[in-house]
């Protein structure tokens, strides 16, 4: 005879369905930033951005000098401008990396929030799907470690 105080045996199933839904929402919210924030990628980006801005400045200076016969004044001017552009590039890249990092942290926090609150359900999931469809395609739910863990639960 089942104990009337005993929780419904279907409670576990409901929890598993909810967990699966949350995992999906989390997966879809998660972005895969592979290189933008990694130190190596950032270092390589900054180095080449410095060099190339300088190179473009020098190239413009050289071309204008030969065209206007003003050597070496425009070369010097554009070298300085190129250096300034290199600095702008540098600052911009650093800012981008900062923003990316902040976004990543915010998203990690958001993922935690989604794990706690059950409010993030159908509507959100569908919104994510629509947002995430490039062209005619959509993202799928390739099984991630989080999902596997949920599967074993219960």
């Amino acid at each position, binding site marked *: 005879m089942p104990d009337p105080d005993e929780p419904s045996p*279907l409670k576990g199933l409901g929890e598993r*369905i909810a967990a699966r839904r949350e995992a*999906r929402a989390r997966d879809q919210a998660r972005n895969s930033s592979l290189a933008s924030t990694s130190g190596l990628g950032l270092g390589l980006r900054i180095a080449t951005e410095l060099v190339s801005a300088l190179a473009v400045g020098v190239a413009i200076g050289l071309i204008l000098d030969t065209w206007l016969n003003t050597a070496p004044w425009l070369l010097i001017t554009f070298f300085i401008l190129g250096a300034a552009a290199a600095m702008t590039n540098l600052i911009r890249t650093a800012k981008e990396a900062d923003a990316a990092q902040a976004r990543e942290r915010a998203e990690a926090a958001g993922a935690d929030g989604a794990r706690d609150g059950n409010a993030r359900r159908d509507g959100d999931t569908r919104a994510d799907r629509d947002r995430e469809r490039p062209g005619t395609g*959509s993202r*799928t739910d390739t099984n991630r470690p989080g999902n596997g863990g949920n599967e074993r639960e219960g």
Partner: protein
Amino acid sequence: MPQFNPEWFASQIFWLIVTFVGLYLIMSRVALPRMAQIMEERQDKIEDDLAKAEKLRQEAEEVYQSYEQQLAEARQQAQKMLKDASDQLDKEQRERHEAFSKELDQKIDEAEQRIDSAKQQALDNLQSVAGEVAQQASAKLLGEQVAKDKADAAVKDAMKRTQEGGQA
């Protein structure tokens, strides 16, 4: 460095354009739409399956609830029946007990009455016998016939006194 040998620039760019355009056409016309379709189908399937699972779970939950309710009702009913039966049994027993004791009382009463009447009768008999004996004894002793009434009354009186004396 061979990279800066202009001899091959044209060839490199030409074949880059040829291969890249080829790749673009294959990808955008065939591979990517097919991929998108597959993934969309799967997305929809997973979504559907989850929705279905949730629906089935709700149905199962309902069935379970009603089963639980029915079980509770049945249990309640069984308890009620049990109680009724035991009440009934109690009542019957009580009634039977009462009837029996009444009968017993009646029988005791009857017996007592019978005993009383028998006693009375015996006493009466004794009285009359005593009266006779007293009459005859007094006749023998006194030589005169005492009236029967007087003898009886004297015996009665004596017996009353003995009775009271015995009782005191």
